[in-house]
C-alpha cells in the first residue's frame, strides 16, 4: 500500500504552497480588516487553473480530481480561510453541482466558464427558515411556457453578490415535499429580477462575501433545470456530500498553520529563562495538535481517494467535515492560549484564525447534521432508520 502522493500531486502541492505564501498571504490581514474579497487573487488563481481543480480538462478544469482539490484547499486553508472559502464555495459546491448532475450542454455552457474562472459560482440553498431543514425552502419555481419563474429569497450565500452563475433550489410542487417537489436550477445572475439584498457582517472569513439573494420573477429557461426535475434535493445533497471532504481539507490547513505558528512562537518566546516550548504544559498541547492533524490528514486524503475512485464516500466525507472543523477549532483554541495575550491581539494572525475557524462547524451542514448523516449511515445496514 503506497501512501505517498503521486508525483504530479507533489509538484502541484509545491506550486500551490508557493502561490499561497507569495500571493495569498500578503493580503490575508488586509482582506479581513477591510472586509473585501481578494479579487486579485481570484484572477491569478484563474490564470493558473486553480478555479476548477477537480474538473476534467475537457471542461476547462485542471484535471486534479478530488485529491488535487483537497491539496489546494489544504494549502489555501493554511494561509487564508477567507480565500479558501471564496474558491471553495465556487468550486466545491456551486460548480461541482453542475459537474455532478449537469447535461453535456449545461457543462459546456456553465461549467466551462466556472472551471476556467471566467465566472464565479455560488450555491443557493439556504433560506431564512430553511437552514438544517433544507427541505423547508419556500422559493418557488412556476412553469411558464419555456421558462420557470423563480420567486423567493436566499440568505447566507457565499459569493452571492459576486457570482455570475448560481445553482438555486426552488419548490416546483409544494404537495410533494422534499422528494419530488424540489428542483435545482442554474441561474445566470444577470437575469432581470435577480438582486442582492443585504451582505452579512460576519465574525470571521470577512474576506469572503455572504449575501442575501432575492428572486423576483426571475425567468429561468427550462434547459437550466439541473438534474432530474423534482429531484433537486438529491442533486444538492450529492454536491454537499462531496464538498465536505474539501472543507475538511481547508480545516486541515488551518489546523496545520495553528500548530506551525505555535511551534515557531514557543521556540522563540522565553519565560523563566527557557523557551516555552520546553514547558510540558505547552508541548503537550502541541503534541495533541500534531496527533489530531495527522489523523485528520489520513481521513481527508483517504476520502479524496474514495471519491476519485468512485467508491461510496458519504460517511467518510461527513467525518472529514465533522472531525476537520472540530480539530481546527481545538488547535486554534490552543494556539490562542499558547500565544497568551498576543493571541488576543487583533494585530496578529491568531485571533483572525480563531474567528475564521468558528464557521466551519456551522456551514455546509452543521456538525449536528454531520452526526445525523454519520449515524444514519452507520445504522442503515442494520435496518435501523435514523430520523433527521
Amino acid at each position, binding site marked *: 500500500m503506497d501512501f505517498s502522493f*503521486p*508525483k*504530479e500531486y507533489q*509538484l*502541484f502541492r*509545491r*506550486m500551490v504552497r*508557493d*502561490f499561497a505564501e507569495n500571493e495569498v498571504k500578503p493580503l490575508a490581514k488586509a482582506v479581513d480588516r477591510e472586509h473585501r474579497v481578494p479579487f486579485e487573487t481570484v484572477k491569478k488563481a484563474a*490564470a*493558473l*487553473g*486553480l478555479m476548477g*481543480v477537480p474538473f476534467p*480538462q475537457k471542461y476547462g*478544469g*485542471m*484535471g*486534479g480530481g478530488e485529491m*488535487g482539490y483537497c491539496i489546494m484547499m489544504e494549502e489555501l486553508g493554511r494561509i487564508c480561510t477567507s480565500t479558501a472559502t471564496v474558491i471553495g464555495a465556487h468550486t466545491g459546491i456551486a460548480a461541482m453541482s453542475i459537474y455532478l448532475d449537469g447535461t453535456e450542454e449545461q457543462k459546456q455552457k456553465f461549467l466551462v466558464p466556472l472551471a476556467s474562472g471566467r465566472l464565479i459560482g455560488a450555491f443557493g440553498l439556504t433560506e431564512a427558515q430553511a437552514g438544517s431543514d433544507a427541505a423547508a425552502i419556500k422559493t418557488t419555481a412556476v412553469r411558464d411556457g419555456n421558462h420557470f419563474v423563480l420567486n423567493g429569497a436566499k440568505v447566507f450565500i457565499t459569493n452571492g453578490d459576486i457570482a455570475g452563475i448560481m445553482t438555486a433550489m426552488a419548490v416546483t410542487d409544494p404537495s410533494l415535499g422534499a422528494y419530488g417537489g424540489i428542483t435545482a436550477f442554474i441561474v445566470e445572475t444577470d437575469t432581470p429580477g435577480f438582486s442582492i439584498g443585504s451582505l452579512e457582517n460576519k465574525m470571521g472569513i470577512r474576506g469572503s462575501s455572504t449575501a442575501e439573494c432575492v428572486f423576483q420573477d426571475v425567468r429561468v429557461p427550462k434547459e437550466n433545470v439541473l438534474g432530474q426535475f423534482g429531484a433537486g434535493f438529491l442533486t444538492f445533497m450529492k454536491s454537499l456530500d462531496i464538498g465536505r471532504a474539501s472543507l475538511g481539507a481547508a480545516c486541515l490547513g488551518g489546523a496545520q498553520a495553528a500548530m506551525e505558528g505555535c511551534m515557531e512562537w514557543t521556540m522563540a518566546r522565553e519565560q523563566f529563562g527557557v523557551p516555552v516550548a520546553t514547558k510540558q504544559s505547552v508541548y503537550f498541547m502541541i503534541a495533541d495538535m500534531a496527533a489530531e492533524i495527522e489523523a485528520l490528514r489520513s481521513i481527508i486524503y483517504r476520502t479524496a481517494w474514495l471519491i476519485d475512485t468512485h467508491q461510496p464516500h458519504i460517511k467518510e466525507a461527513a467525518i472529514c467535515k465533522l472531525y476537520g472543523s472540530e480539530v481546527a477549532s481545538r488547535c486554534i483554541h490552543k494556539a490562542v492560549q499558547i500565544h497568551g495575550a498576543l493571541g488576543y491581539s487583533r494585530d496578529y494572525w491568531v485571533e483572525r484564525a480563531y474567528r475564521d475557524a468558528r464557521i466551519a462547524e456551522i456551514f455546509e451542514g452543521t456538525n449536528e447534521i454531520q452526526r445525523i448523516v454519520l449515524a444514519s449511515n452507520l445504522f442503515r445496514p442494520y435496518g435501523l432508520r435514523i430520523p433527521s
Partner: protein
Amino acid sequence: MKIIVLIKQVLDPAGILIRRDKEKMFINREEYIVGPDSKAALEAALQLKDAGGAEVIALSLGKPRADDALREALAMGCDAAYLLNDEAFAAADVPVTATVLAAAIQKLGGADLVVAGRESGDTGAGQIGSRLAEALSYAQVTDIHALTGVPGAIQATRRWGGGYAAVQALLPAVVTVAPEAFPARYAHGARIMNAYREWQVTTWNASDLGLNDAALKPLLVFRGESFPQPLPVGEQVKGAPASAAHELITALKLQKAIG
C-alpha cells in the same frame, strides 16, 4: 528561436541547517527542487517564448531523480526535456559538466540560445555558461538582468563595472541570468497534472553522447570543507560615534554583510 535551458536540481536549502559553531551541515529535510537560478533561466527563456514564439528545451545533468525537476520545467512551459544520467557523471567537476552538456547540446543539433543560471545556488562556480560558449563557439553574455530577442541576436542588460551595460550579442549565444532579475512564473495546474504523462523525458548516457572515460576525467580535486567563524552575539561596540561607526563598518565588511 530554439532555446535550450540548463536545469540543475539541488537540495532545498530550506531543509539544510549549517551550524558554524559545530562546524557541521545538517540535512533536516532532504527534498530536491529546481534550483532558483535554473528557475530564473526557465523564466527568461519562457518570456522569450511568450514574446515571439520559441521552442524551449530543458536539459539537465543529474541523477534519475532529476526527472522530477525536468517535469517541473515542462509544467512551466518547456516543450521537451532531456536528462543526462550516467554513473560515470557522478564525479563530474565543472569542466566535465561542461563537456557533457556541450556534447548533449551538439547532439540536439545546437540551439540559437542557451540559457543558464549565473551560478547554481549550492556549490555555484558560475562557470558553465562561459565554458559552454567556448566549447560550442557561441557568443556569450553573463549575469544578465533583462533580455529581449531581435532578429538574429539578443539584447541584454548585464552587470558591468559596478553598474549595468546594454549589450547585443549575435546568435547563437549563451546567456546566464541573475536569479533575482527573473522571478519565476507558477506552472499552470493543468500542465502540472499532465507533466508526467504528456511528455517523454529522453535520457542519454555517456555512450549516447560519445564520451569515453578520458573525456570524463575530472580536472579538479576536492581538498576540504571549512566553515566561517560563528557570528558574535551581543558584541558591544562602544565609544565616540566616529570610532564606533568605523569599528562597526569594518566588522560588517569583514563579515561580508556589506560590500
